[in-house]
């Protein structure tokens, strides 16, 4: 009773809000439960869905393979499925600090090679699948993985360059960061998909997926560079003094003294940018790549299932949320560690 009075009914405003929240809760939650569970149709039967008041989970049951794997050949779905699990496994494995050793790079190289073999095939007796047909969750994860893997080191170099004593290097880095930050990601993706081929010599083509990936790396690097720069600026001048006084050369000083401290400070904003980047990969739908969100959109095009967008997007949102929330929790844990 005391807890109730202290926390929920302490004063007029507090009581008002408590009542308001309770009313909203009872107005919204029971209808949602009715819709999502009690009246829901679980069979993949679009006629039954149309007849019912509730959610049509049958749509997800019917289309989940297309949503998760895109246009990848139907009987070969086991390949992207294993690749997805493997990639998520690699991430979880790398999240454990005990394994932050140099051999982890080899684990990643091996893991990515296996994923590449699974996705492309063409050897070991499994049929070849060109990457135009890759899609769904694995595409989202691959774009994120390679995006972060290349953009993060690049961003560190950009941030260091922006603080360099050498005017040319500083100018180039500032120019790059400001230019890329001043342009929406969508326009970068358009440029990569439409304009870039115009400039390439005749006969030379770069794969659409690769072009999108490069555009995303360039974009993410500019944003991450500013986050890293924030961390660098938080390092007290005394740390530089001490490193100079010990005659540590630039790269040693940067690698051993400055970056370990700057990156630790930057963990929360870095993770913020990583999460934003993970969701931004969905913009590739604009140039015709089938990531998780695009496959949801396309599966709604089928006349029989048109109109069940809420269920479809809720499903995609849950998948995105699981990944983003895990990243967020992990970042909280990293901050608390020494």
């Amino acid at each position, binding site marked *: 009773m005391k807890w109730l009075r202290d926390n929920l009914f302490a004063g007029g405003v507090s009581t008002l809000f408590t009542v308001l929240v309770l009313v909203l809760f009872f107005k919204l939650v029971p209808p949602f439960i009715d819709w999502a569970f009690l009246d829901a149709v679980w069979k993949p039967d679009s006629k039954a869905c149309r007849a019912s008041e509730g959610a049509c989970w049958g749509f997800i049951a019917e289309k989940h393979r297309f949503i998760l794997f895109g246009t990848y050949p139907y009987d070969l779905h086991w390949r992207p499925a294993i690749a997805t699990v493997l990639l998520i496994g690699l991430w979880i494995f790398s999240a454990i600090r005990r394994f932050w050793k140099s051999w982890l790079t080899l684990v990643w190289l091996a893991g990515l090679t296996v994923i590449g073999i699974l996705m492309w095939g063409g050897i070991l007796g499994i049929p070849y699948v060109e990457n135009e047909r890759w899609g769904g969750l694995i595409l989202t994860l691959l774009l994120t993985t390679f995006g972060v893997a290349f953009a993060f080191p690049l961003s560190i170099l950009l941030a260091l360059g922006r603080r360099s004593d050498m005017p040319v290097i500083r100018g180039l880095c500032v120019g790059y960061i400001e230019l890329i930050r001043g342009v929406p990601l969508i326009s970068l993706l358009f440029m990569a998909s439409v304009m870039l081929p115009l400039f390439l010599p005749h006969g030379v083509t770069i794969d659409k997926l690769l072009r999108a990936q490069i555009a995303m790396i360039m974009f993410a690097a500019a944003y991450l560079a500013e986050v890293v720069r924030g961390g660098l600026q938080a390092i007290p001048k005394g*740390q530089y*003094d*001490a490193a*100079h*006084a*010990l*005659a*540590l050369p630039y790269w040693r000083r940067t690698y*051993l003294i400055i970056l370990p401290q700057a990156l630790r400070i930057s963990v929360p904003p870095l993770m913020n940018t990583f999460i934003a980047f993970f969701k931004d990969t969905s913009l590739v739908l604009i140039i015709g790549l089938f990531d998780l969100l695009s496959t949801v959109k396309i599966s709604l095009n089928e006349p029989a299932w048109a109109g069940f967008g809420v269920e479809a997007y809720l499903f995609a949102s849950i998948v995105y949320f699981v990944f983003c929330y895990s990243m967020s929790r992990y970042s909280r844990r990293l901050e608390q560690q020494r």
Partner: protein
Amino acid sequence: MIEMIKVSKWFGLFQVLKDIDLAVARGQKVVVCGPSGSGKSTLIRLVNRLEVHQAGRVIVDGVELDDDPKKTDLVRREVGMVFQSFNLFPHLTVLENLTLAPVWVKHVPRKEAEGTAMHFLERVRIPEQAGKYPSQLSGGQQQRVAIARALCMRPKLMLFDEPTSALDPEMIKEVLDVMVELAREGMTMMVVTHEMGFARTVADRVVFMDGGRIVEAAPPADFFSAPKTDRAKLFLSQVLGH
């Protein structure tokens, strides 16, 4: 060991150092004092080129400091420095702080560097703290680690920039004791400090600065008993008065 000839330095339009002439011979201990803003810290930071002079010459251990980074590097390897705010590396343990520069700059094998580090930690009387992080130590302990860190590079010359100014009174002595011991062993030292007791005990010469100039330079006995300038008299009355 250190030779400064007509050295001047400006921060923007403000001249912090004006025509400084100073020579410190091998084995000498020089204490630099003066009111705040008189340029003492800037002066000592010229010696390992943490600050850059704009006129005159600075020669350290036979190497004249100029825009050539190789010469700066050469001097910094021979010159240890201790700062007012310790400036230990917070993400490394005490032992890692001590072995970092010997391993990465002088390419001493790690085992040997750790042996040297433990030797100097014993000298500053805190070998039991080797595995701790700087934030787990008291100010006096941190400053002693900082001294040991500088000594691990086997310097020919040690610079101290107000090493006790950030310390609680009861910790000042433990740091000064280490410095006195170092002086007795013959280390060449240049020390910016207001600890006049220390100056009296170990200094060969006290350099008094005001307004970017060396106003007076004399053995401590003469400086404390018979300061020549009014400025120095006033300063001494303020520092010793309490």
